[in-house]
């Protein structure tokens, strides 16, 4: 019988210590142990990107990582993106640009877009499309997703009003 391991992981700025089986995937740990169901499982085969989270600030597919591999590391999920009740610029932009329909791909899209913008703060359209090649959307046709990321890169995300949306205002943008 395989023995369990004790891991300590910081998830969305909170430290957790848990005993886990080595075969437990990071995405299952996040969803089933920590209740962080904002991170979704789409394909479960490393293709769709719905499960994308940040490990020490860079994007990874949490269906293709063991929870034990995250021991001692910092994980950020979509649930850690808003600060003080205000949506992060990317969440705001997805909301404003109508960059989602069913919303299933959205948490992964936002996490991958955030990682892309960290590596390349001013991507052009092609670089955005390449940066999102590991994230599939079955609804939008990608156009508004690309527009949303571009608006953050260009600093035009708050639109005309200059007022940002609170988490309560937006049942969208993958925050629920």
């Amino acid at each position, binding site marked *: 019988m395989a023995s369990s391991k004790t891991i300590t992981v910081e998830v969305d700025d909170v430290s957790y210590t848990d005993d886990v089986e080595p075969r*437990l995937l990071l995405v299952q740990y996040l969803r089933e142990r920590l209740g962080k169901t904002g991170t979704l499982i789409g394909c479960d085969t*490393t293709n769709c990107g719905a499960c994308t989270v940040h490990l020490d600030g860079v*994007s990874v597919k949490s269906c*293709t990582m063991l929870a034990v591999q995250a021991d001692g590391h910092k994980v950020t999920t979509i649930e850690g993106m808003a600060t003080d009740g205000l949506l992060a610029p990317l969440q705001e932009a997805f909301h404003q640009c109508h960059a989602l329909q069913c919303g299933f791909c959205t948490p992964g899209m936002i996490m991958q877009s955030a990682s892309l913008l960290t590596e390349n703060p001013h991507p052009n359209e092609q670089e955005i499309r390449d940066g999102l090649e*590991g*994230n599939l959307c079955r609804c939008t046709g990608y156009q508004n997703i690309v527009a949303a990321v571009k608006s953050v890169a260009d600093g035009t995300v708050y639109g005309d009003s200059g007022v940002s949306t609170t988490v309560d205002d937006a049942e969208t943008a993958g925050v629920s």
Partner: protein
Amino acid sequence: MIPSAFDYAAPTTVEEALGLLAAADSAGDDVKVLAGGQSLLPVMKLRMADPSMVVDLGRITGLSGVTDDGDSLTIGAMTPHHVVASDPLIARHLPLLAKAAATVADPQVRHRGTFGGALVHADPAGDMPAPVLAMGATLVIAGPNGERSVDAADFFQGYFTTAVREGEILTRIRVPKFTGWGAHYEKFTRVSQQWSIVGIAAMVRVEGGTIAEARLGLTNMASTPLRATAVEQALAGAALTAEAIAAACLHAAEGTEPASDLNGDAEYRRHLAQVLAKRAVLAAAGL
């Protein structure tokens, strides 16, 4: 999908890892080395592999990173693809490697997947073996009896099979510098984020109006990566013109044994090799 249960160890030194592999082996455990997990975990989830013990190399310091040794660069086996694609030393001295790494999978997979893992995995459709072969790299393997060095030409031995034996770990890859060479990796896929149907790794050294030297590696034209020797010979001393390059690249499928599968039959792959070789060499030569 959840893998079968296994025991897990995360050693912090290569010696400790080798000890764990040897102990597991003598205890009759089916032991697997885990690097980035981007090939191993998917097959474990599908239960096409069900090791009873996994030794994770991810906590060993010193297996990742790039160092300048004068005539060559040494790249740690655990260096992730995204670092190979963006490291300034690699971009300057081994541009072919940087360009090939940038075509692997997608950004998330490139953040986790490692250079060494891609070489030991040795998928015929994988993008890193052909450049490593074309550049004549040396692979350093640690085992119970110490270290040994293997030339790339002897490393890739067959379908998913390399010179790395059970109980051994690939630790680093030494690649001679090709500073000033033009390079391009031309990969053909039907959709983005796909494995190569055929890929061509090309490097040329241009002197005045002629191609002084060329090196070409072929991806997915046999069970192992291949050198396109006939093209290399035809290009050596050839004029730096599109016509001369096109003529030389007609030899690209010579000596290949491509598979037939859902992505294309062998004849289609031979045709692709010629077309893509021309594109790759033209781009490498800056034409």
